[in-house]
């Protein structure tokens, strides 16, 4: 390991660590969270999480579907008819700005919301 190696590692790692800390480091509670559902890049639906437990089926293309479970504090996929099942394995998401994605079906669900203290948890 030489000195320049360290510079490269720091150039990559520092912004990434700061970004990750901004994204996931906050323990704030969020209010008025919504789930935005995008199909092939286009916004198709916005669902408020406040309504509590609900399951919706997202249809993509001719045969593709993903079942999204919406709870008051977060969302996750319970089922999908794809081979990889990556979206189901990804687990539950709690933070605004986080995204659940299904690569084969081109489905993207983004959490939106504001921190309770009135300051944006994430600036982007």
């Amino acid at each position: 390991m030489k000195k320049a190696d360290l510079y490269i590692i720091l150039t990559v790692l520092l912004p990434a660590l700061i970004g990750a800390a901004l994204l996931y480091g906050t323990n704030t509670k969020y209010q008025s969270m919504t789930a935005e559902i995008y199909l092939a890049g286009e916004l198709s639906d916005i669902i408020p999480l406040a309504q509590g437990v609900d399951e919706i089926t997202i249809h993509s293309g001719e045969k593709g579907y993903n079942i999204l479970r919406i709870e008051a504090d977060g969302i996750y996929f319970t089922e999908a008819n794809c081979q990889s099942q990556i979206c189901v394995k990804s687990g539950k998401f709690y933070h605004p700005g986080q995204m659940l994605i299904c690569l084969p079906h081109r489905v993207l669900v983004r959490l939106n919301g504001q921190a309770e203290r009135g300051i944006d948890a994430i600036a982007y």
Partner: protein
Amino acid sequence: MHTNHEKVKRLSLLGILLAFTIVIGLAERMIMLDGIAPGMRLGLANLAIVISLYTFPPRDTLLLIVLKCLTTALLAGSMIALFYSLAGSLASLLVMVLLIKVKNLSIIGVSVAGAAFHNLGQILVARFIFGTWGILLYLPLLLIAGTISGIIIGLLAKAVRPRISAFIKATY
């Protein structure tokens, strides 16, 4: 006769490296780190790419990358995977070819930079597939994991490379 031996050795070593990338690439599909980011993998197959880059001219490594991406996409049966892996591998190769000439930079730094550009290339493809820049929010986690696996690959390549150059230089 001598040059023929060299050619055969080069060809066989490239074949071994290609086989390595394909097998490791498929094996890695079983231990994907989906909890962190969808489809995230260790990227150990890039060990062969780094070794090839330090052993053969860049065009040989380019060939290796294209063949690896095509074969893996065919075996996985996914055209989308082809776009992701090509974008990542080519971006990574480009930056490594440039950095390899920089003095004071060892195989570890080159490998880490390669890993970072692999992530950047893939996230750019994802941006166009999903149609939103919001996908960039995955980048911090990808870069952290990429740095770690880049360091590991760099260390491994550092250990393996002298043995391979000995194989290349040995005459029969």
